[in-house]
């Protein structure tokens, strides 16, 4: 079997697919890329059994076949080559691979493509269509809020909920929660599932701006297809907590502040906060917001005041400043609104202005003002 392909084109595809290869794979063959050639189309498959990336590029080949190529050595070779056509010739008996470039020949040994684990396929054709913008936006807004707690498996991923022409992404680590809804999606049926963090990171790096994405789901996997790529992610098999129940409905106190000013102020204040809790106290009275933090161990203290629009009862509330900074950083809007009830109930952070098709809501649980 023989085929020719442009080195830089192949490298581009392999670098994306290579993200799925794990550092310590469960099977040795998972260190390889699976190359499948059918009718002048090369399909590249890389997997760690949790997420799988499938890439397709055009090549010129003499026959059909498959081979597993060691990942690291192939990537290193391609990185070191300037852009040029290269030829792979594979001995079907010995699985020996010979790469020919303008400079010379490189030999490496592959493995039988049939030994590569099968990848799963969607068993029905009910798909959801949306633009990559939506997915990128949703991932950026939610990924940071996921948890690393092994005891709370469901929270290690992002929850996807599909309703008629609506997609909602939710992430939480039990202290903060982000919910993003998008209405400009094309879908007929309902579905809900949890995608692991790693898959979402892969998705993020594989997606380019403004291309149509098609999503399909079965019992165990989610399939994202776009351009010449398919990404298959194993779902987290756990029950997602009832996030709607924890969003407080009655929040009479409303703070409106310019996002950038609020963020810079918090960044300065955070330097002086105690490292264990990163606690910042917001004191709210009519049209004035006072931010303060203290580190008792080192007698560090900071206080700042900034103008704001505040309607409601004067109140003090404390938050983990790191969480607040993370949340404000992922938003891009001029003003943010913080809706509050009491100092022990979750605060709701929403962008001041939003697209009609988009609805982002962030929830942050306060730090207690006093000890138990």
């Amino acid at each position, binding site marked *: 079997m023989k085929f020719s392909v442009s080195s830089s084109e192949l490298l581009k595809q392999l670098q994306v697919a290579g993200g799925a290869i794990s550092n310590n794979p469960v099977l040795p063959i998972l260190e390889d890329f699976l190359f499948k050639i059918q009718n002048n189309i090369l399909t590249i498959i890389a997997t760690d059994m949790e997420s799988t990336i499938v890439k397709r590029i055009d090549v010129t080949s003499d026959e059909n076949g498959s081979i597993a190529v060691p990942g690291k050595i192939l990537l290193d070779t391609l990185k070191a080559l300037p852009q040029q056509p290269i030829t792979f010739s594979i001995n079907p008996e010995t699985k020996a691979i010979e790469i020919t470039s303008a400079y010379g020949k490189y030999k490496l040994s592959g493995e039988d493509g049939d030994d590569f684990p099968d990848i799963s396929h969607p068993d029905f054709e009910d798909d959801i269509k949306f633009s990559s913008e939506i997915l990128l936006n949703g991932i950026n807004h939610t990924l940071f809020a996921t948890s690393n707690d092994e*005891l709370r498996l469901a929270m290690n991923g992002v929850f996807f909920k599909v309703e008629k022409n609506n997609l909602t992404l939710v992430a*939480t680590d*039990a*202290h*903060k*929660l982000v919910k993003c809804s998008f209405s400009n999606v094309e879908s007929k049926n309902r579905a809900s599932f949890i995608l692991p963090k790693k898959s979402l990171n892969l998705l993020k790096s594989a997606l380019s701006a403004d291309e149509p994405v098609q999503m399909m789901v079965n019992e165990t996997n989610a399939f994202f297809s776009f351009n010449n790529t398919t990404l298959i992610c194993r779902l987290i098999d756990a029950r997602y*907590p009832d996030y709607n129940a*924890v969003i407080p409905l009655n929040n009479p106190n409303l703070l409106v502040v310019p996002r950038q000013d609020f963020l810079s102020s918090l960044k300065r204040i955070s330097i002086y906060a*105690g490292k*264990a*809790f990163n*606690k910042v106290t917001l004191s709210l009275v009519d049209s004035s917001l006072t931010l303060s933090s203290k580190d*008792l161990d080192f007698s560090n203290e900071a206080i700042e005041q900034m103008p704001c629009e505040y309607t409601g009862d004067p109140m003090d509330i*404390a938050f*983990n400043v790191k969480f607040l900074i993370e949340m404000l950083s992922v938003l891009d809007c001029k003003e943010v609104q913080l809706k509050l009830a009491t100092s*022990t*109930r*979750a605060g709701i952070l929403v962008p001041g202005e939003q697209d009609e098709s988009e609805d982002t809501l962030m*929830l942050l*649980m*306060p*730090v*207690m*003002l*006093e*000890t*138990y």
Partner: protein
Amino acid sequence: MFERAILHLDLDAFFVSVECLRNSSLSGIPLIIGGRGQRSVVASCSYEARRYGVHSAMPLQMALRLCPDAVVVHGDMDVYSRYSKLVTEIIASEAPAYEKASIDEFYLDLSGMDRYLGCWKWSGELRQKIIRESGLPISFGLSVNKLVSKVGTGEAKPNGAKMIVKGSEKHFLAPLSVKKLPAVGDATYKKLSFMGVRTVDTLSKIPPALLQREFGKQGLSLWNKANAIDESPVTPYSERKSLSTERTFQIDTTDVDWLKDSLAAMVTKLAYDLRRSGKLTSCVTVKLRYADFNTFSRQQLIPYTANDLELIRCARSLFDRLYERRQLVRLVGVKFSHLVEGSPQLDLFQDTLSDNRLLRVMDQVRDRFGNTALTRASLLDGDN
């Protein structure tokens, strides 16, 4: 004479002395302070009992076999704390800087006092004052650092005093058995004996690199100790680094539910202490000892909390991962470490407002009526 002068004070057979003070008919006879159960150990014993080979931390059953005539008294920790406090107050009123190393041990830093007061004279007077005012026998050792003073006290006992002047520390330690050095326990002693090291003198002559190879980090500190080097300061106040408790069962058991419930009861009690000291923990350790004395422990990092339910959940899951032998269990214990002062981050799904309010009210009831006044029904058990 002294550049640095450290005084170590140690109450002689503290628990026994207190019992004798309260009941004079107990003095002069072999007396053992120990717990009630079948498996309790000797907490302290009189010098008369020590003559029979009884020593503290020995199982009570064994002590009684060695000395059948001994009188066993079940101690009262509250009384001991009260007497300890009394002695502490006397020392606090006299000493420039003191460290309370345990319930019956004190370190005093007397550096710079020699020229005007005479450390030896001053220490003797302090000792007499403690004996006069509390009625308890006390011994002391005076030397250039904590280590030598402590060993000196050990040599001065019972009811004596010893001074090791600067320059003679090494001579003083040299002929002693390595066992007399603090931090040389049974295991280290055994290992040193195998190496042919029995006296401090021999130990001090071993190259430190060799000790480091054999004992790791501890080897170097062992060598320092043998050479009478100890720079550790007298620290008047030391922050608690951890809170822990453990429980040895009357009868070994494999009843997992019951084990978990006793673990939960311990966590509840410890969490209350944690909240009362205004602290939060972020590291929970569970310890398990099987009937064959094999001991295992496992720990987990969690977000800072002092909430009962959260801590019980964590302790239970640690126990599940730890108990894998299907063997009788002798002891379980739990420890909270990485303590910090502060207020907790609230959880969206777990601490609801009512939970926190309940916790606070329960604490108020316990503040008023004692730690055991109120508990969760699920933790009640015939054996608690």
